[in-house]
């Protein structure tokens, strides 16, 4: 797990260096490594491939333009990217244009239906599905509202009818649980990979 983190952090340092120097290759490096994650995040919020593409472009332009504002001491580069993508996507969803487009008979009006309902229809990754399914429903909803829908604590309080103190402790528990599940998932994948390689080697050696 820590080697994965090291690899991520090393990549971030490289990108920060490129951005600092105003090197436009940064955009391609970011795209190469983060486009899928950011696109997935954006799509989860806007529910439209076309709009998500637009928002992804806007996000990258913002990242490039505001690179000087990134402060390592306040968080990781990925978190900063994700926040820009998330905010741009939420702004888009809340914009008048988006609301109008969704009203005029688009088939992509899944935003509000998908929020609190099951994610099964939206998730392609079986690993994710596994994690999500194993995650306590009340935690999942909390992360959903806070992170993907950009609700404020007051709005969550109103939506879920739970007090602020509970939100705080539950959010912490949610992320702790997520961490454990993801670690387990990663270990499982790792063990599976080792097993596969072992079997393959065995097979090759036998023949």
């Amino acid at each position, binding site marked *: 797990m820590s080697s994965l*983190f090291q690899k*991520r952090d090393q990549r971030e340092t490289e990108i920060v260096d490129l951005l600092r120097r105003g090197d*436009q290759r940064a*955009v*391609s490096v*970011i*795209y*190469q490594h983060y*486009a*899928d*994650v*950011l*696109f*997935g*995040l954006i*799509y*989860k919020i806007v529910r439209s491939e076309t709009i998500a*593409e637009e928002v*992804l*472009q806007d996000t*990258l*332009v913002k990242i*490039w*333009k505001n690179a000087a504002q990134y402060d390592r*001491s*306040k*968080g*990781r580069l*990925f*978190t900063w990217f*994700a*926040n820009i993508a*998330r905010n741009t996507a939420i702004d888009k969803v809340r914009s008048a244009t988006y609301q109008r487009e969704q009203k005029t008979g688009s088939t992509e009006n899944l935003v509000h239906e998908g929020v609190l309902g099951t994610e099964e229809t939206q*998730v*392609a*990754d079986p*690993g*994710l599905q596994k*994690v*999500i399914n194993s995650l306590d429903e009340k935690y999942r909803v909390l*992360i959903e509202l*806070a*992170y993907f829908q*950009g609700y*404020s*604590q007051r709005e*969550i309080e109103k939506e879920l009818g739970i007090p602020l103190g509970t939100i*705080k*402790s539950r*959010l*912490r528990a*949610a*992320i702790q649980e*997520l*961490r454990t599940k*993801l670690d387990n998932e*990663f270990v499982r994948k790792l063990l599976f990979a080792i097993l596969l390689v072992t079997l393959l080697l065995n097979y090759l050696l036998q023949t």
Partner: protein
Amino acid sequence: MNIQDYIASGILEQYLMGLLTDTERQEVERNLAQYPELREELDRLEHTLESYLSLHRRPAPPGLDAEVLKRINDDVPTPPPAAAGKSSPWPWLLGLLALAALLACWWLYQQRASQQDTIDRLTTELAELQAACDQTRQDSAVLEQQLAIIRNANTRLVQMRGTPKAPEAIASVYWNTNDQKAYLDVISLPDPPTDKQYQLWAIVDGNPVDMGVFEVVIDSSGLQEVPFIANAQAFAVTLENRGGSTTGPTLEEMVVIGNVS
């Protein structure tokens, strides 16, 4: 501050999820800078979030980065035209204002120059008029004085007529026995040669008495005061050598003579 309690409060999770107010967020950022343990914990949370979000990954259409680069590079030269287009009324307006100011300057300068000309002309004119006025006043004072002499009840006029030598010549003596004053008024005398000068004489009991030489004043400014001789019976003017005769008048050169009536 107890770091473990602070972490356990769940505030870092709120920070990560963007649930804090600006003030709370700034406080967390200050603490992050101060306590490495907090930064480590946040790092773990961030990695969890990244892993979680990675599960949602969705293949992004290839080539969008090229689009983004195009937009970035379009944006760079775009500001100048946009800025120029936007602010173009300003340089234009400023240029117009500058031109107007320049024209105003030129107009004011012209005005000033023409006014200066007028002032110069009027100043000269005024000086001339003042001089003329002074002269007139002076003349007038002299004339008044002379008029006073002439109008004085005790003043007598002795007119001297031309002799056959100068029939056109004429001069007068105003004579005031009360004030003991006498004045010569040259009305018309021929111009003397340069080496000669006219001399006035009084005749007292048949003897000539010198009353001094005088110049023919062309501007006819009027009366010239001459010595007063009591008991004069007649006055005469002779042409003498310059400086006058001390030995008596040259009778052949007499030009005018008049008796006291």
